[in-house]
Structures are given as C-alpha cells and as structure tokens.
C-alpha cells in the first residue's frame, strides 16, 4: 500500500493510504473518542458520530473510524468545531439515557460514562425524553434494558456478522428505533442461541449478564484468564472473581482461538462452580450408604484395597479411567499412577468413546492422530467438506469460522450428514447419507475424482504409498452404486467430488459422526484417503480435521491415558520407550497393552477386573448399553470415583473423592488444534475438595510411591523431558496464546499445521477400504435408525450443565427428534411422549417433530439421566479402535398415551 503524508493536529505523519483516520491517529498516539466502533472486530459502522474530526476542505465533519486517508489530508481532531459536535452528539444520547449510573451494573466500565467525563458533559441542553421501554428479561442469561441502549449497533453486528444467528436487528425507525429480537417479542422467543456475544460488546448497561446482576462491579473483580473446560475448541476467557467467588465470565478480543467469541456454555455455563451440591469431603460407602470421611481415612482405605487386590489378583485386575475434563498434568500423573504404582496398562478414558478411531486411523495413514490444521485456518479454506459434525452445537466457535469462510470469504461448503444440521443452510451441497454408509460415500467421491482425472498426481507420486490398491477398490464404487447404498443422488456425488478436488484448498472437518461406528477406523482412513488423493494435506487451510469433543480429550490422549501408549504416543510395547520411562520413574513397567474402556467394563462384568479408579468420568451415563455398563461397575469389588458432583457413576462407588472445577486449580489443557493452554486457579477449592493432581500424589505417597510436586508446572517439566512432542512446553512459554505441538524444544514456536513436507510416518499411506454395514440395522421389529449426539445447551452426561440454572431452563429435558412423516405415521405430535426401545433397553421422552431428522432416523442427545440415550445404544465395537457404535442402532417407537 502507498505511503502518504498527512497532517494530523499539526503533526506531519506518514500513513498507509486507505487506512482510516482513527487507525492513523492511534498509531500517532492521538486519542479520538469512539462509541460504536470496534475496529478490533472489523466493525466500524460510522454511525454514532462521536469520533468525528475535521478534514480541511470536506463540507462536513467526517467519522474518523471510516474515513480513509489520502495524500495531503489536513486533519484536526481537537478543534472547537469538533469538540462542540462531539458534545452535541453526546448530549443527544444522554438526553434519553437513564442517569441511574450509581446503581448501574456497567458503572465503571461504561463507554458513555467515559465519554461524558472526557468531554465534560454533565447534562443535556436538549431536555429529557425517556423511552420508558419495559425490561426484556425473557432470556435466562441476558437482561435487555433498551432504555439504556445507545443504538451503537455493536450487538446487531456481532449477532449477524460474526455469530450469524440473526436474532436481533434494528427495528422501527427514527426516534422509535430500537434493537428488536425477531418480531419484537423478547429475546427468549427469537432465534437467539444465548451466546451472549451481544453482552460482551455492549458499551453501556443495556445488555447485562443476568446472573451477575447486583453481585459486583468492574473494579471489584479480579480477572483470571483461563481456558474453557467444555468442548475441544479451547476458548480463552476471564473468570471475574469477587470475594472468593466466580461471579461471571467475560471474554476479550485478544484471545488467540476465539477472540471475543464464546458460546452459551462458555459464557454462562459456569454457575455450577458454586452449586451447594458440590462434593466437599471424601465419602466412604458403609452399609450401602455414603458417610463423610477424612482424606486420611479415604486414602488409607483405597491404598489398602488396591494393594490387597494387586497382591491377590495381580496388577491387571486393576484399572484406571482417566479424564478428558482434567488437565494434562493430571492425566499424566494418573497414567503414571496406573503404570508405576498399580503396575498396569489398563488405563483409558472417554476418548475411546469419541475419537479412538481418529487416533487409530490417522496414525496409520499419516503417523499422527490429531487435527492436521489450525482453527483459524478454516476461514481461509476455499472449500470445506464437513461430515459427521454438528459443529454449530458441538463446537460453536469453530462453526463461526466455517460460517466466516462461506459468507465472508466465499468458500464452498459441502455438508455430508444424515441430519439437516444448521450448517446445511450454508452449504453449496448437502449430502444426506444413510447413517453408517460413510465409507461408500467417500469411495464414491474418490471414484469420480479418479475417473475424471482430478487427483493430485504429483502429490500421490511423491508423498504417498498404496495408491494402486486404493484405486482398484474405489473404482467399483461408481456414483450410481453409491447412490444405492447411501441414498445420495449420483449427480450430487459428482458435484461434491469436483468441488473437493478442484478447490485450491479443501479442509475436511469431521467429528463423531465419522468415528462412532463399528467402521469408525475405516471411516477415518477414508478421510485420509480423499485428502491425500487431492493433495490436501500438509498445507495451510486444508487437511483432515477431527474436532475433539471435550476440552482436554486431545491432551488426555497426548499424555498417555491410553492402554497402548505412554505420553506422546510412545508405545508401551517398545522396549526402548519402556526403559526410558522405567528409568525416569524408578520402577519396572509392563509392556503388555492394557484394556480399553469398554473392555475394562466387560472384564469387570466378567469379574476379571476387580477394582477401578475413575477420575472425573461418568461411564454410567456415557458408555453404550448402559444397563450392561452399570451392572459391570456394580460388580467391581472396589470402585473409587473422584468428581465434583455425585454422578451416576459415583453413586455406585465405594469411595468418592471430591475433586475441583477448573476454577480451583492450575494446569494445562490441549485443545482440538493441539494447542496447549493454561488454566489458572481463580478461587480456593470449595470445602475440603482437592485438585486431582494432588489427590493422585497423596494417594501415591500413601501407597509408598514417591510422587511429589509443588505445583502442576513441575509436573509439566517432567512431561516435557519424557515426551518429545511436548519437549518445548514450559509454563513460562504459555502465557501468550499457548503452543501447538509438536513443539520439540524450548525454542520451537509450535506447529500450526502438520505433515508439511513429510508425513509423521514418512509417506502417507492409502488404505483401500470396503464398505461394511453397521452392526445393527433396522428391521421389522425395530424399524428406526437411532443416532445420538449432543445439543448446544448441554455437555456430555449433563453432570455440570444440568446443574447450570439457565442452561437447564432453556433445554430442560430430553427430546426425541423425529421426522414429520414418521411422526404422522406414529400418530404423535410435538411435545407428546413416546417410548423408544432397542434390544438393550427402553426410555421415555418427549417428541420434537423436525425436518432435521431424515425419514426413518431418530436422534437423541445423551445428556439426560431421566432418559439416558445410552440405555439403547449398541456396544458393538470397531475392531481396531474399540470405539462403540453410538451412531447407529435399531429402535422401535411407541406413543405413550
């Protein structure tokens, strides 16, 4: 861009032509007051007119936030004409603004207040016309007081342009103008998804966090920057703490992953921290009832029992379930505890249930089982192939990047999903495959690509192996054949294949719709196949991008909470690796691959596993075929559970240990894009609860193994020494946006995208995969396909979100999503109850009639213990990764009168 010379307040400065006067002024250290502009979000509507300045020769004053500079401009930012105009604008705003500043939530953090102070405006010469609009308190999280609204439009902008929910906009005209939600009926009754972005950007007290009302003002809070503990996006935000309590969450634009954006759970879903049903002391079950106990008692009992079982039945009769909700350090310690103290590799965690197929599949094809690219690269992809991910609800912040790619950057989006997910609206093509037919669909796409000569021949030749075998297999899958299997029209398959192959960069994004099948690993291999076939790996804004479900499911895998790996995917069967850990930990270690989650429970059912230590997981809700899983947990001789609430699993335990939430501990977690970020202690542990890392250390000590760390930072030092991909991860490097692994040494900047010039395994490997049907298909008796997932307002087994007041108010109960045609045939209407039954169990839930579900397919989330979807699901496993088939089983549905 051209450099031009301009004069601003008598000072000559060189500026880039086309930049705004405001930008140049900021660079030159000249402060221009603003109200509506949020340049950091690219939003400068130029409508409040507070930032006006004088440009010599211009007929009127100009809004500096939007006026581009050019050679020779002479600008005055503080002339009397300018100051007068600003004062008038401010007086016009204040004339209708309630002056209850002393009791306003926004006091101290209010832009209008700051402006009045700066310009010395005490009152308005124009008199007062108050608007007298009623408060909108309909939304459980947000109070709208439009009397205070200055119509800056920030909320509308973020809702429509970034969040793209279009829940609010300017309504009416002239002095009756106000921000309205849909038909002006209150926020609750609009399309609003309660992300609260509007609250985050409101400059005045018009949009207020309902739960924080009356609980403190800005100067009373200590802000503690941390990382969200819900999904795998890894958003940063600040806990606002007052007098030892987390009052609210605020976000800021500097956060690397999410900027100012958060979803409803991140922004409003942390009220569970101070729930009074938190577990606050250890509990020991005596005669079928829990009794409070001291830590000493609890440790002693656990230590005695573990030691006894180990002695009597061997180390492998013990097992440990680690947690994707706990920190990297805790996962590391627990797997160390399992391997070094208990002596078994029977350690696993819920990643088994969500993305073990990813780890298995991508490791085989690429050599590394993680998201190849970064979240921020998505927005710049030329095409996106999204499959098996209802991103809007499960990874809301990543969905924003996809929307940005489509609506702002012109990317073509192909959605392949049996459900009509929200992002289908943004799609160039929506392929509605029959659940469980993903391999066929991928093979069909590759068939077209090869037949039309669209494959990346150079990439295939130089960077891959196994192509001929793949080609032989996929050539059988013509679009017509695939149409018969998947139900996707042959022409759509052709169109999608062409888009995939011809776009300069195509990013494939998937989630559990791909992995949670008995063919999960095959599905994942197929994603790798098509990405390599089109040369879309190892470059920016492309790749294969599995979205990890929980906040630290990536980290829990990275840190070796897996039966076959130590931290950093170092094999337990590799003797060199074993020796390294053995030496570091000072004990002999087993080289026998341990059991996976479902296998552990099966073994418990059979009596082979006698005791399990469950850290902050809830298999009694999350595992497939729950009746079986719960029975297995009951059959254990000794079950220890640590968690923050009394979960369905904890109910079955012999000892329950009170853990803490992320607000009460330090540590790191690793998000879906391999970014290791800090969580920071904001408050003291509630009651007698303890962070899990401390619990593991103290229990180890009790059991005679020296595990002694002063803080999680020391644990990370040990991790970095033993784990090459985390080799350069040190706490002092994590304050500014974290680091993405692989990060082998202290000077490495981290890795934005993987496999740049070389795959982790050397050459990328094609796997020819044949289509196989799901384990259980609908039949006459069980005619519907049952598929499961999550919804925006809840998380996992609902342990914490069901305890969040607002989340539960918005989405209080389980719903069975049924296609309108099916509903009609079943004679059920929206809101009526049905019984849904599979061969394994039955539940009762309310019907939601929706086009989202295809005909013959019903969907339920698994958050609700009252109607636990996993009572129905099939525990049939993928033979390689041992992931259960949550996405397909057969059910029947009956109306309950």
């Amino acid at each position: 861009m051209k450099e031009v010379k301009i004069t601003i307040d008598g000072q000559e400065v060189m500026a880039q032509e086309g930049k705004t006067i405001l930008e140049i002024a900021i660079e030159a250290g000249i402060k221009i007051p603003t109200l509506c502009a949020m340049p950091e979000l690219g939003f400068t509507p130029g409508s409040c007119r507070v930032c006006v300045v004088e440009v010599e020769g211009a007929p009127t004053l100009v809004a500096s936030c939007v006026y581009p500079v050019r050679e020779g401009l002479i600008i005055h930012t503080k002339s009397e004409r300018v100051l007068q105009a600003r004062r008038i604008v401010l007086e016009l705003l204040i004339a209708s603004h309630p002056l209850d500043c002393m009791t306003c939530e926004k006091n101290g953090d209010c832009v209008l207040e700051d402006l009045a102070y700066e310009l010395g405006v005490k009152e308005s010469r124009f008199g007062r016309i108050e608007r007298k609009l009623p408060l909108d308190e309909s939304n459980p999280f947000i109070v709208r007081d439009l009397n205070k609204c200055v119509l800056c439009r920030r909320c509308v902008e973020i809702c429509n342009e970034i969040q793209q929910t279009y829940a609010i906009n300017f309504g009416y005209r002239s002095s009756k103008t106000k921000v309205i939600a849909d038909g002006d009926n209150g926020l609750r009754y609009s399309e609003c998804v309660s992300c609260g972005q509007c609250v985050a950007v409101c400059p005045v007290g018009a949009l207020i966090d309902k739960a924080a009302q009356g609980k403190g003002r800005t100067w009373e809070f200590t802000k503690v920057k941390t990382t969200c503990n819900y999904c795998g996006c890894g958003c940063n935000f600040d806990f606002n703490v007052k007098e030892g309590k987390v009052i609210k969450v605020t976000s800021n634009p500097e956060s690397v992953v999410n900027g100012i954006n958060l979803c409803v759970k991140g922004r409003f879903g942390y009220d569970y921290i101070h729930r009074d049903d938190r577990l606050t002391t250890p509990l020991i079950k005596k005669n079928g009832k829990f009794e409070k106990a001291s830590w000493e008692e609890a440790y002693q009992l656990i230590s005695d029992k573990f030691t006894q079982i180990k002695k009597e039945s061997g180390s492998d009769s013990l097992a440990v379930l680690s947690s994707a909700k706990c920190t990297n350090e805790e996962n590391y310690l627990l797997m160390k505890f399992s391997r070094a103290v208990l002596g078994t590799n029977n350690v696993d965690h819920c990643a088994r249930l969500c993305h073990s197929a990813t780890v298995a599949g991508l490791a085989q094809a690429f050599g590394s089982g993680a998201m190849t690219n970064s979240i921020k690269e998505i927005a710049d992809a030329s095409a996106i192939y999204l499959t098996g991910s209802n991103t809007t609800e499960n990874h809301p912040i990543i969905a924003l990047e996809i929307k940005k790619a489509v609506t702002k950057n012109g990317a073509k989006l192909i959605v392949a999903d049996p459900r009509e997910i929200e992002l289908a609206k943004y799609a160039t093509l929506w392929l509605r495959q029959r659940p469980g037919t993903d391999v066929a669909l991928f093979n069909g796409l590759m068939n077209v690509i090869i037949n039309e000569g669209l494959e990346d021949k150079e990439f295939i030749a130089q960077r891959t192996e196994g192509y001929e075998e793949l080609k032989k297999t996929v050539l059988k899958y013509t679009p017509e054949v695939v149409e018969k299997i998947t139900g996707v029209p042959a022409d759509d398959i052709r169109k999608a294949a062409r888009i995939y192959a011809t776009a300069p960069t195509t990013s494939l994004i998937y989630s559990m719709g791909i992995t949670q099948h008995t063919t999960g690993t095959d599905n994942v291999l197929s994603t790798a196949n098509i990405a390599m076939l089109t040369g879309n790996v190892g470059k920016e804004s492309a790749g294969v991008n599995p979205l990890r479900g929980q906040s630290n499911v990536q980290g829990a895998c990275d840190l070796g909470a897996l039966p076959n790996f130590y931290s950093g995917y170092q094999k337990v069967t590799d003797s060199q690796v074993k020796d390294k850990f053995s030496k570091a930990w000072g004990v002999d270690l087993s080289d026998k691959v341990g059991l996976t989650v479902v296998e552990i429970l099966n073994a418990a059912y059979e009596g082979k596993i006698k005791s399990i230590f469950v850290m902050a997981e809830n298999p009694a809700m999350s595992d497939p075929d729950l009746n079986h899983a719960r029975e297995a947990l009951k059959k254990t001789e000794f079950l220890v559970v640590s968690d923050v609430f009394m979960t369905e699993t904890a109910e079955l335990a012999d000892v329950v240990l009170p853990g803490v939430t992320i607000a009460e501990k330090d540590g790191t977690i690793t998000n879906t894009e391999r970014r290791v970020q800090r969580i920071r202690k904001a408050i003291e542990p509630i009651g007698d609860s303890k962070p899990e890392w401390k619990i593991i250390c103290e229990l180890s000590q009790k059991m005679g193994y020296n595990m002694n760390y002063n803080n999680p930072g020391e644990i990370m030092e040990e991790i970095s020494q033993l784990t090459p991909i985390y080799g350069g991860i040190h706490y002092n490097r994590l304050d500014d946006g974290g680091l993405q692994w692989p990060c082998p040494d202290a000077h490495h900047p981290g890795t934005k995208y993987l496999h740049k010039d070389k795959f982790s395994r050397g050459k990328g490997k094609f796997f020819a995969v044949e289509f196989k049907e799901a384990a259980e298909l609908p039949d006459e008796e069980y005619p519907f396909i049952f598929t499961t997932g999550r919804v925006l307002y809840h998380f996992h087994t609902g342990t914490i979100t069901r305890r969040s007041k607002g989340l539960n108010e918005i989405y209080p109960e389980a719903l069975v999503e049924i296609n309108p045609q099916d509903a009609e045939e079943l004679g059920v209407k929206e809101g009526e109850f049905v019984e849904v039954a599979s061969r394994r169990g039955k539940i009762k839930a309310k019907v939601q009639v929706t086009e989202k579900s295809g005909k013959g397919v019903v969907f339920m989330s698994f958050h609700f213990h009252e109607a636990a979807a996993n009572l129905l699901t099939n525990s049939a496993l993928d033979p390689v990764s041992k992931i259960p088939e949550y996405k397909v089983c057969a059910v029947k549905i009956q109306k309950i009168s």
Partner: protein
Amino acid sequence: MTKKDIAQILVGIDGNTVLSGARKIKTKLITEINKQGLLDQVSVIETGSIGPVNKGVVIGIYPTREIYGNVTENDISEFIQERFIKGRPYKKLLLPEKLPIEIDLTAYDPRKTQYFGRIVLDNCGKINPEDIKEYIGVGGYEALGIALKEKTPEEIIEIVKNSGLRGRGGAGFPTGLKWSFAAKAKRIPKYVICNADEGEPGTFKDRLIMEGDPHKILEGMAICGYAIGANTGYIYIRGEYQLSIQRLKKAIKDAEKLGLLGKNILGTDFDFEVKIKIGAGSYVCGEETTLLNSMEGFRGEPRLKPPFPAESGFLSHPTNVNNVETFANIAPIVLNGAEWFKKFGTKDSPGTKVYTILGHINRPGLIEVSMGITLREIIYDYAGGISSGSFKMAQIGGTAGNILSSEFLDVPLDFESLRKLGYSLGSGAILIMNETVSVVDFMKCCIKFFVHESCGKCTPCREGTKYIYEILDKISSGKGKTGDLETLKLLGKSMKDTSFCPLGQSAPNSLLDTLKLFPEEYNQILRK
C-alpha cells in the same frame, strides 16, 4: 396525424387525474364524438400529464394547443358541440396554459423552454405512453440505435460528459463522470439503477415523467448500460406510483417484443433487461446507498461511502444510480449531441429542469424550464402569480431544501448560483407561500416529517430531529424560553455537520434558513 384528423384530443391520464375520473372522461369523449359523427375527424388519445395540477381532469387539443381543466362527464356533450361543431373554444373550462410545441431551435430563447422546446417532457402530454409505436414515431429508440451501432461506450460517456448534464436527483453530480467511474470498475455483472423513489414532499415530477413517457427512461437506462457495461437495469420505484409501475411494465414488455430491450438489442450483441423493484414507502430509500440496501432486502438505511456504488453497489457489484429525470435527458443528448444540449440552461448547469410548482399560486403544475431561470419568472411567468396576498417565501427542493425570501427572487435557479449561496437545487419541488403562513408552524410540519422519516442509524439525525421538534413545539405552544433559538441553531448546524447521510445533513436546512431570514417571527412568539 392520421386519417383525416382535424384535431386530436389528448386526455391526460396520470396519477392525479385518474382519481378525478379521467378514464371515464376518455370513454365519454369517444362516445360523444361517435354520436356526433366526428370519428374520422377527431381522435381521442390517452397521454401522460399535460401539466396543470389541481385542475381535475385535464385535456388538451392539437393542433390548437388549448388546455381545458376540471372537465366533468356533464361537460362533455356541450364541449364537443361547442368546440368541434361550432368550432370555438369552450370558455367555461379553458385554462390559460398552452400545450407545448415541438422544439424549435430557430425560435430558441434560453430562458423559456416552456413554449419553445422541452427536452424531458417533450413527449409528455403528447404521445400515448402505452403505445411504443408513438414513442418510436417521435424518434424514440433512435438514440439507442445510434449508440449501439455507431458509438463506442467510451464515446457515449464522452458525449454525456461534454453535455455537462448534472444529476437531477438534487445533488447535481456530473452524470458523465459518474458513468465513467462505473465503466472503469472491473467486477461484473454491473447494474444500472433508476432511482424513482421520489419521496420529497411536493415533488412528483418523476412520476409524471414516467407516466407520460416511460420509454424515454428505458432508453436512457439502456444507453447507460451500454456505456458502463451493464446488462441489467432496475427501476426502484415508490409503491404508491401504481400507474407509473403499470406503464413501465407495459413499456418494458413492448420494448422487449420489438428487440429494443432484452437479448441482442437491435441485432447487436448487447443485452439489457430492465426489472422493477417496488419500494415500501420510506423517504430515506431515495438516498442511493439506502436504496441499494432496500433492493437487497435489508433495512432501509444508508451505507458508508466509500466504497461508492460505482465500485461496490447492488450486491457489492459496480452500480450506477441516476434519477428518472437524468435518464430522461440521455436519449435527447445522444440524438442531438452535447453542443445542442448546452444551448439550454447555463454554462455550469446546462439543460432544463423539471419542477412541480405548488402553493399560493394561480397555476400549480408541472413545468420544464431552462436552468438559470429565476424564482420570479417561475412565479409570474409560469405560475400565474401569487393567488392571494403577497409572496413571503418559497421552499425549493422539497422539505430538505432551502427557503428563499423575497430578496432571492432574482437568483438564477441552477446548481452553481445556489451553491454560492450555500443552497442546493434539490428535488424539483417549489412551494410558494404567502404571508399567511407562519414560519414556526411550517417548520414544525417540515421537521415532523423528518422525525418520522429518519432511519435511526446515526445519533444526530435520530435524536436531533426529535429534539428540534420538541423545541419548536414548545415555542409554538408558548412554552419557549430564551436561548431556544440558539439551541435550535446549534443543533441544526451540528446535524448538518455530523449526520451520516444527506437526510440528516439536509433536514435542518429550512429551519436554519428561516432562523436567519425570519428571526423576528420566532422572537415574537417567544416574547408572547
């Protein structure tokens, strides 16, 4: 004239006269002529506005050029008898105005095009706007043919530039220059938009142009499309303009049938289609960027400039927006050349201007006069003088325009002369008021309009109009206080200086003018 016509009766059918029963009059005229056995001598022709307004159904007679007003069904029989059997004027309904005649440059008088030639209204009140053959018969679409077959797009832009034509929407931006911006823009497709969202109170010249000569607009748009490289044109038109919409729709269809619009126009490889978008009645949608928002289905509020529409307009594509009257000038310019056009009007503002003149005058109506004519000439030569009392002030350019008091009667009305006074020519409405009009009451009316029409986007306009009205209301109800006038001035000036778009910038124009011209009136009320 065909047949053995000795006369043609023109029935002005426009939005005004339709309401007075013009269609019935037309039928009755034919019946009566038939009855009298005059069918082969007198033909009855439907046309657009003949000129006078507030005169009920207006009819004109060629070749004698008489105009009759307030024609009712009861008059017809007597009228035919008197006029065509007895052969004398029907005095009862005769108006002083005359029908225009053809442009006659030998009789050229730069000041008085009303009688010696009109450019925009040339065909209005003369041809049947619903018959494309009549338009073609008077040279219609010839300019388009010349443009497509004999000129390059660059040459067309040069001609328009050289003509000195300035936008007739009010701001007076040089049209050729505007076109050259859109022509330079790279992105395709490009769009041509005709701004027919005539919302300025008292202004209805665009309506009468569209009703009277719709093909002229289409031809102008097509030439513009050719010049800038656009293949689609839109007419954004007020929903209230039903007759215009109906006639434009028919005109588009007829032109398409004859290959004058649509694919391969006149056998060339130039395609141009015209579509109609109907507005929903918001004043600010006449502002060109607001119009674009409205066309795209967004809330009617202005966009930031830059980018200007020429670079990023409709659907973010290069777009050229011109007013109806501007487009109506194009075909005559291309046909007759830039030099011909410059013979009309003044050096800085060549051509003519169409005005609707209203208020306390004897002959309100639609006139087309040379640029540079004075307000005095308009009032006394065209409007028949003040109807009662004496001249007090005139508001030119509609509610957003300026106030001229008697000291301005001899200021030439053209872009430059007014600009020198800090005024603008505006929309083409001239409202003339006598001494019975209270300045404060009049201002209340004007500001109330803006209170209603402000889009609400920017602070000064949304809030400023409201508080100006409040203060005026207090003054007029005797609750004014010292300092109010200062506050009004300050607020008005601030609005002009800080508002986002021309609406807010021009809303206080008349107020500030009256505060300057008639301070004693305000003070009088304040003192009471």
